[in-house]
């Protein structure tokens, strides 16, 4: 043991330094099967820290170590295929049960004497009533023959349009209006509202986010903002065999919205009173929590093509019936090239008419079964397990000859 040179180690106090220096005490044999204990002693024993080697710190926790064997792969794919195909079939079947009528009316419901559609819609003196007939038909021949009937036999602005709706529509039949190319998800539009103002009368003046539809000379606009200002105002009246079909407006808005987001003490004020009228006018004597159309409209849609619930018809519609719809074509979608459509639809457990889910499930189920079969073929055709020494060329000939 060479003598340690006594030198000037520095200005520090040696006793202070030695008390800070950690002393490592390691117990024997750090084999991986043992549990050695490491003891770090810092300073005096008062600051003793002990890190015990647990299974966690040695990364020896009990675990399962899955590996993708051929068996697992094939089983998984077959299992997914077997589950998905029936779901797909059930969804497709349910979707086929739904009866849906979609009728675009904004291009037809302009009086033929006006060539400029925008002009027609903006004027307040034009007659915006439009009558359409919808045929709930189960016969293809009947539909085709109707298309050939000349226009003059019907009311002014009316068209006989028939749709391939096969059958009886069970109540409730939901009436939606669908608008295309209307960007309710545009950032500035979505911001243009004041939730606090909608909720309670006390916050009437909180209209900062609602510019430009925020205030008039008479005070703040309630409800303020572009969303409310552009409220949809077409109306539809249905009748079948000269009997009026009631469109119920109950429960079209979410209950949670009616109770919490729109106050029952907030009344419309100064609404649509500025120069440019954007949509419907509101009944100033009804509080906002009862203005269902407004509540439905204020839930901004996420996509530029959307449907909103207008109401529901509580009566069954028989097959081969002709429904006459009187449409008040008020809403201006012509300025931006939008489209308006009227939709009548029944529902099933899957929602509206949509084959996508059924087809998607069938596709993925089919793909999985196809993959299972191909993996079986691949594993059977190439059975060589990894590194099986019997396949090595110098092992094929036990005598060691190379050929």
């Amino acid at each position, binding site marked *: 043991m060479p003598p340690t040179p006594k030198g000037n180690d520095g200005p520090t106090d040696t006793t202070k330094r030695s008390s800070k220096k950690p002393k490592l005490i390691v117990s024997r044999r750090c084999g991986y099967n043992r549990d050695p204990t490491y003891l770090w002693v810092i300073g005096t024993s008062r600051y003793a820290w002990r890190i015990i080697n647990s299974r966690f710190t040695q990364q020896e*926790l009990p675990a399962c*170590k899955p590996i993708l064997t051929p068996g697992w792969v094939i089983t998984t794919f077959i299992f997914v295929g077997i589950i998905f195909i029936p779901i797909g079939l059930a969804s497709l079947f349910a979707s086929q049960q739904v009866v849906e009528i979609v009728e675009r009316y904004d291009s037809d419901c302009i009086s033929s004497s006006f060539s400029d559609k925008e002009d027609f819609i903006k004027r307040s003196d034009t007659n915006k009533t439009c009558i359409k007939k919808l045929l709930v038909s189960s016969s293809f021949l009947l539909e085709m023959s109707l298309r050939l009937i000349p226009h003059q036999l019907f009311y002014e602005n009316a068209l006989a349009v028939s749709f391939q709706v096969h059958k009886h529509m069970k109540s409730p039949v939901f009436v939606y209006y669908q608008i295309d190319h209307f960007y309710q998800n545009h950032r500035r539009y979505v911001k243009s509202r004041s939730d606090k103002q909608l909720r309670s009368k006390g916050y009437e003046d909180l209209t900062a986010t609602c510019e430009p539809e925020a205030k008039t000379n008479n005070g703040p606009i309630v409800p303020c903002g572009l969303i409310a200002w552009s409220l949809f105002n077409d109306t539809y009246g249905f009748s079948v065999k000269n009997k009026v079909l009631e469109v119920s407006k109950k429960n079209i808005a979410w209950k949670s919205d009616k109770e919490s987001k729109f106050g029952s003490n907030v009344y419309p004020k100064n609404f649509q009173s500025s120069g440019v009228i954007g949509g419907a006018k509101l009944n100033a004597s009804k509080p906002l929590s009862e203005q269902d159309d407004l509540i439905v409209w204020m839930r901004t849609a996420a996509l530029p093509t959307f449907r909103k619930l207008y109401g529901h018809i509580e009566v069954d519609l028989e097959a081969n019936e002709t429904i006459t719809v009187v449409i008040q074509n008020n809403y201006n979608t012509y300025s931006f090239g939008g489209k308006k459509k009227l939709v009548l639809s029944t529902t099933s457990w899957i929602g509206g008419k949509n084959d996508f*889910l059924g087809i998607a499930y069938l596709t993925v189920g089919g793909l999985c079964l196809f993959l299972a079969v191909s*993996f079986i073929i691949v594993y059977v055709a190439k059975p060589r397990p990894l590194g099986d020494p019997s396949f090595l060329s110098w092992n094929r000939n036990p005598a060691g000859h190379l050929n």
Partner: protein
Amino acid sequence: HFVVLPFRQICYFFYKNVAFGVTVFLFEAYTSFSGQAAYNDWYLSFYNVLFTALPTLALGVLDQDVSTRFCIKFPLLYQEGVQNVLLSWRRILGWMFNGLTMSPLHLLTWPFANVVRLLAWIFWEPQCIPCVVWVVNVQMAISLSYFTLIQHIVIWGSVFNWYLFSFAYGSMPPNLSTNAYKVFLIACSPAPSYWLLVLFVVIAAVIPYYSYTAITMRFFPMYHQMIQWIRQEGQSNDPEYCNMVHQRCIRPTTVGFTARAEARSRSQRK
């Protein structure tokens, strides 16, 4: 050897953020790029904090592809780190590509599917985000090779966290939860087609990676995967077998003319 494994964590981290970010970008195409966020602010913030953070952490800390014993037995494993096999650009871009191609699935199925009955297309996050969270966590579960109890808890716990958060946030009064108020609870959860669509997106998004892993695992395994096979087939105590596997790693082939020439030259050198 376990210090090598955070590489997988990094690849996964890229993947999950790409998967999430591309859905946000794709949504912008629908809003005519006005900058309207696809998701509510809190969901955006919590994606990386609550819903996907812990599995990543657990992957980095706890994952091991082969146990300590095998690491000592097959020291060539360490070459994987030296040769930068695990964090090559090809792997990183591969993971990101996976995220990129699967995110249209998360986002675009919803417009086609027209799920909710009362309001046809409503705000996005209760539809898209669970898809992304599920897929990202299931992807993690598939790519893991060492499943401890902790991994199970954090993976399925993160998914559960999403539902818990969605429920809690939606139940807060509207002045706090703004437009997320009760969206999940009232509009989405009662609709069976909502759940069916989430299931569809999860399975469909994971199938490509699963097939790819199955094929590479079987026919083009990396060194640590070969060792996993050896362990699986119980041949780890056979020295000749292990030696053969060593050679397999060093040289691209163990059969054919090259191998014979090598074997001959080696025996002559001895």
